[in-house]
């Protein structure tokens, strides 16, 4: 399965394909990316390259062999192109003639073999030391549910329109509005695995915002909820309590709509961090 020299194993085919698929699925489930790096050092053996790499990789990184004896690869989980470039910078500080290609992976249909061929051919054609490959596929659109809870119907519409007009590439927003806490909790709208952004006033009829916050945070999959609270009371105590109860953001009414939009964009951006 793997060549075990030192402490970090170097995986071979076909196992590396399974590991690649597993890491990819794991990363995409958490809305993260992984990076594949292929390094070619024509003046040294694969074992020597692997030995250099071993001194740089983290315990979660995966080393692998390709079908060329002068090549080794690394899979960096939960990382992007920038991390891969830093990794190569550290590697290139050592002596030796090396070339490398980087591919960031964030689409479920990306295949190990096809990626490897593209990277090998890119290394062969490249004049520079590092080639960053285009991912070819767009990041798949993520469906995000948005719930707006406020007792004032017109203000719910204002927030709905503000969110709806946001430029959120790669994210499909599905917006619903609710006038009270209980209707929201009983609507069934919360039941799904989609990321769910809840924009909620602290005071609501029937079941107030803080109650709803507690209920959402006590659900087993509460991590999917990003909760932004709104209040008319500008008190540090209330804010502290809301944050301690699991709110991700806090806005004091009246607030600037641009500030609101910036907060929403920031919270949505965190989904793909």
């Amino acid at each position, binding site marked *: 399965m793997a060549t075990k020299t030192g402490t970090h194993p170097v995986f071979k085919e076909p196992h590396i394909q399974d590991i690649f698929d597993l890491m990819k699925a794991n990363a995409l489930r958490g809305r993260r990316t992984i990076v594949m790096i292929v390094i070619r050092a024509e003046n040294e053996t694969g074992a020597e390259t692997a030995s250099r790499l071993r001194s740089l990789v983290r315990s979660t990184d995966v080393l692998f062999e390709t079908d060329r004896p002068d090549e080794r690869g690394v899979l960096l989980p939960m990382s992007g192109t920038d991390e891969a470039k830093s990794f190569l910078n550290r590697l290139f500080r050592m002596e030796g003639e090396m070339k490398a290609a980087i591919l960031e992976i964030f689409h479920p249909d990306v295949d190990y073999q096809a990626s490897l061929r593209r990277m090998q051919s890119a290394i062969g054609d490249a004049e520079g030391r590092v080639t960053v490959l285009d991912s070819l596929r767009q990041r798949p659109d993520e469906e995000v549910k948005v719930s707006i809870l406020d007792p004032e119907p*017109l203000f719910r*519409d204002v927030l709905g329109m*503000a969110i709806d007009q946001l430029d959120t590439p790669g994210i499909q927003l599905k917006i619903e509005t609710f006038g009270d806490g209980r209707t929201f909790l009983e609507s069934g709208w919360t039941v799904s695995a989609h990321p769910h952004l809840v924009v909620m006033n602290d005071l609501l009829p029937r079941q107030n915002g803080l109650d709803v916050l507690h209920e959402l945070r006590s659900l087993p999959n509460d991590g999917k909820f990003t909760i932004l609270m709104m209040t008319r009371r500008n008190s540090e105590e209330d804010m502290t309590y809301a944050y301690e109860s699991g709110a991700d953001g806090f806005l004091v009414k009246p607030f*600037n709509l641009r500030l609101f939009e910036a907060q929403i964009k920031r919270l949505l951006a965190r989904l793909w961090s």
Partner: protein
Amino acid sequence: MTGISVTTVSIGVLLLLLVLVALTVYLFAARAVQERKMEKAKAYLSRNNERWYRVLRGMEDVSAEMVPKNKAELAAVEEIFRAYLTNVSGDKIRERIRAFADGHLAPFYRKKLKSRNWSERMNALYRIEDFGMESLLGDVHTLERKRLTADERFQLLLIDLQFRPDGFIGRNADRLGNLSEYEARQLFFLMPEPVFEEASAQFGQLDPILKYGMVEVLGMRQDLKKLPFLEGLLDSEDPEIRIRVLRAIDAFGIRTPDRILERAFDSPVWEERFLGARMLRRVPADEAARYASRLRDDPSWLVREEVRGLLARQREAAEDLAVLR
């Protein structure tokens, strides 16, 4: 035996029935009118809600269709504006509302200001303040000369404060004394900083109700820069002012300076000693115990109780600490 004839009774019953029928018809008609008005308002909202969003955010200009044609549409526009004004700030939204109200809603409110109906006039005054309609200031001044209720007078003051803050206190000195305590508080709360400064410079000449309101608002604002001003007011001969000043200082949530505590404890007024005792909760335990010993035999039961509670809490805290160690 004198009796009422059957004919008279029948006529009476008939008249009553007629009145009842007339009343029922009136109620149904009024209800129908109200429902029609609500439908018109709803139709306006569904036609223009999104458009208003774009207009108020500066994405497009107002179109003729958005100008209300009747009272129902005016109510819908008021509802939209209120939703923005109470929940959203900045981004020139308030200015856009002001411009539209001045340009297109003024005729409606001008008519309402002349109405004999008190609620219509009040409604107009509220909206003039909410929407900042400067174009109606002349009409508002005309109204000032008429006989008005206290609520209308207060609303006129708020409008004057919004549009002519310079010299507000001097101009309205004789009217401010008639305010209720709640109105005085509201007025000071809405006061821009320069007017507030002007009022505090004339504190000695203000009516007691205004003095109380100002001290209360200073406590709510929790502005530490005002502590020396409040401290100066502890020299006042009016015990009510001294009590409110101590309450305002307590609301600051700071460790009260010793000189203020000393003055509170030496006061012959039990409320001042009580507030001083309450402030001890933010004083280090050993110092608090020293002060508390002075109040242990206070003639007021409430002061003694406050001190007893404080000492008990400190004892519990010390015991908890000992367990942790």
